[in-house]
């Protein structure tokens, strides 16, 4: 048996080395043919890995040759574009630039407060203190960090979730229903996108103070419910993603408008929904100025304000600096956003591209 396996591997290699002129896909088929031509062989263990590695190498080689050819002829395969050293370098630098603060955060969250202020910023401290730091973050001031975390989750789920829902329904209605005043709504929405949220924060504060709502979670949730950009995005997206004829067909079949929306349109809107949700989640998760002026009670703080309060301890006369906890807390704070991005990024990309090409 083992000799057969070796033979098969050798055949594949021989094919691959022969296939100088083959390119990726063809060669793949060639290798398969070699395998299926003889009796079906199932490679196992290390030999299989080895063969696969060789095959990948061969494919890579073929692709590289194709790129070389296309550089000469000027015809390039869109699925195998030519590579540019310059651009790779630029994007590489940009990636380093983006990841640098993250690296700093990772390194410094392992330090004690003493090491934090006395050792080199990009080097590790005298002791590895990450686990203790995480523990202290969650126990400091009777575990208020956990409370801030839950608050932020509440604001994100109710605020950003509500904003997304309102944006979907509003955007869909504006795209698919004709009613008087649609143009006026359009003007208002476009206008509100151009007004930065910070400019509205102070009037909002005075308004909420009159309503006795400052210092309550409502002061955070109600303003977060409004996302003009999300509405605009969903409007454009609904316009493109849901064919009017499909809705008409549903109506002809006797479905109510709500049923049409929930069972026909909503699934079609999924990529747009994820994009809007990501926008609103990130905006709410990172919201700083609104809670800063609305909330005075640390029990209702979101993470941003809470961490800043901890940070200001280091500049307060007579207070104890806890920058190690601030850094570790910041690291913990970004983890959910990173996870959300990694899980939803393919939707995010397709959502951003939506409407770019008219089909």
């Amino acid at each position, binding site marked *: 048996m083992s000799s057969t396996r070796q033979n098969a591997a050798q055949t594949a290699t021989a094919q691959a080395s022969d296939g100088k002129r083959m390119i990726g896909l063809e060669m793949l088929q060639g290798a398969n043919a070699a395998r299926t031509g003889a009796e079906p062989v199932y490679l196992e263990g290390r030999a299989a890995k080895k063969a696969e590695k060789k095959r990948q190498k061969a494919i890579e080689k073929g692709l590289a040759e194709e790129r070389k050819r296309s550089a000469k002829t000027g015809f390039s395969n869109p699925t195998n574009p030519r590579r540019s050293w310059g651009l790779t370098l630029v994007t590489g630098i940009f990636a380093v630039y983006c990841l640098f603060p993250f690296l700093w955060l990772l390194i410094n969250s392992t330090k004690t407060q003493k090491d934090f202020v006395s050792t080199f910023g990009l080097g590790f401290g005298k002791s590895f203190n990450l686990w203790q730091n995480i523990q202290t973050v969650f126990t400091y001031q009777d575990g208020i960090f956990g409370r801030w975390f839950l608050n932020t989750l509440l604001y994100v789920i109710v605020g950003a979730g509500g904003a997304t829902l309102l944006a979907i329904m509003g955007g869909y209605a504006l795209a698919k229903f004709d009613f008087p005043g649609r143009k006026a709504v359009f003007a208002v929405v476009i206008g509100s996108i151009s007004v930065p949220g910070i400019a509205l924060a102070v009037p909002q504060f005075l308004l909420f103070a*009159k309503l006795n709502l400052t210092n309550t979670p409502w002061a955070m949730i109600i303003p977060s419910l409004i996302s003009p950009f999300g509405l605009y995005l969903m409007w454009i997206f609904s316009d493109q993603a849901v064919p009017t004829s499909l809705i008409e067909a549903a109506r002809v079949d006797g479905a109510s408008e709500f049923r049409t929306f929930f069972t026909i349109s909503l699934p079609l809107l999924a990529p747009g929904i994820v994009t809007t949700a990501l926008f609103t989640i990130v905006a709410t998760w990172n919201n700083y100025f609104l809670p800063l002026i609305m909330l005075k009670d640390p029990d209702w703080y979101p993470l941003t304000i809470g961490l800043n309060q901890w940070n200001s301890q280091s500049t307060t006369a007579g207070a104890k600096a806890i920058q190690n906890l601030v850094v570790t807390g910041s690291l913990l704070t970004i983890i959910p956003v990173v996870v959300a991005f990694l899980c939803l990024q393919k939707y995010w990309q397709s959502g951003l591209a939506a409407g770019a090409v008219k089909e």
Partner: protein
Amino acid sequence: MKLSVKKTVALIGAIAMAGSLAACGNSNSASSGSSSSSSVTKFDPNKKVTVNVWAWEPTLTPVVKAFEKKYPNVTVKLTNSGTNSAAYTALDNALKAGKGAPDIAQIEYYAVPQYAINHKLADLSAYGAEKYKSTFTTGTWNSVHWAGKLYALPQDSGPMAFFYNKEVFDKAGISEAPKTWDEFYEDAKKIRQAGSYITSDSGDAGFYDSMVWAFGGRPFKTSGTNVTVNLTGDAGAKKFTEYWQKMIDEGLIDTKTKGWTDDWNRALGDGSIAGLLTGAWMPANLVSGAGAAAGKWRVAKMPTLKEGEKANAENGGSSLAMLAGSKGAEAAAAYKFLEFATAGDGVDIRVKAGNFPASAKAMKESSFLDATTVSDSNGKPVEYFGGQKFNEVLAEAAEDVTSGYQFLPYEVYARGIYGDTAGAAFTGKTTLTKGIADWQAKIISYGKQQGFNVKQ
């Protein structure tokens, strides 16, 4: 709705009157004399009330716990609404909105006049707080008065002292801390030769004010709405401005490292900044900010113009004030807390937690004077000053604080624009004399806009 509000107000008023009448009837004339005004509600320990306190002072947390234990019906809600100017912005916003302002707020001495002149603070003499005159140090007691009225009770103080890194001083061949400003200048040169700076300043208004105070200057005077600003003509201000300009010109102070940044902490820890002229609250910050230099630092009294002179100033320090909007049972309970935290059991609790008190009595306690350790971020005691009984020096420094220094009635604003005017002198773009003249011009024009009668 309106009627019922009126009724409640009337009711509260009636209760208040009845209460004060009862007080007159029951107790001796001395105590009724101290609670002179009949408009304040008497504290009733059996009544359930919530007192809102806005303060950033960390040692108030255990005080609140002790107070609630003593008066179980009173709930004290301690809120950290920011530090310094951030807290004042929050307070101003709440006052402007007319809702959500606390009963008690932590207000630094320099900001007391600003809130007092706008009638935002309650006059505490109505509660008989004048009897605490001998409890507090003279400097802090003067700072909580405005136009003859008492608007706050001192909570902590910051008599200035010279904190220095003895290791660096030894290396530079200096055996003891400078006693006069001339010696300070000579030492600064030696320390610069040894590769460090004697201190840093990149344009700190609070520091400038305090140093002018220590140099005997009294540039601001206020009576009623008449304000005199004389930074350019005042002898003390002039002397310090020129002295500091000389230090900047000769590169003897670090003007690049901004105070309270990570770089600054690092520089204090590794000895590149070898000294600080600052308030007595500094030890806690040194331990957590510059822990690497533990054991190397010492505390000395501030240098003076003439050797042996008693001329010190306050730097920082804050009071607890009651807002004028606090009324009825809340106000009564709020005053009780104010008393407890600043003149009662709270003082000991806070001193133990590392606070530098404003109470003259607390400064005489041997447990305070004999302390050789400061607790770090984890609560562990650290012999930061190499076993020196640093509080002995600081308590003496508190006694040397000279009286008669006044803040502007809009000092918060004035300090906010110091960096834009005099700050340029620290980057060499102008001289400190010119920068201060510019600062003065801006202070005067702002005061006039605010309706003060400002003279130079």
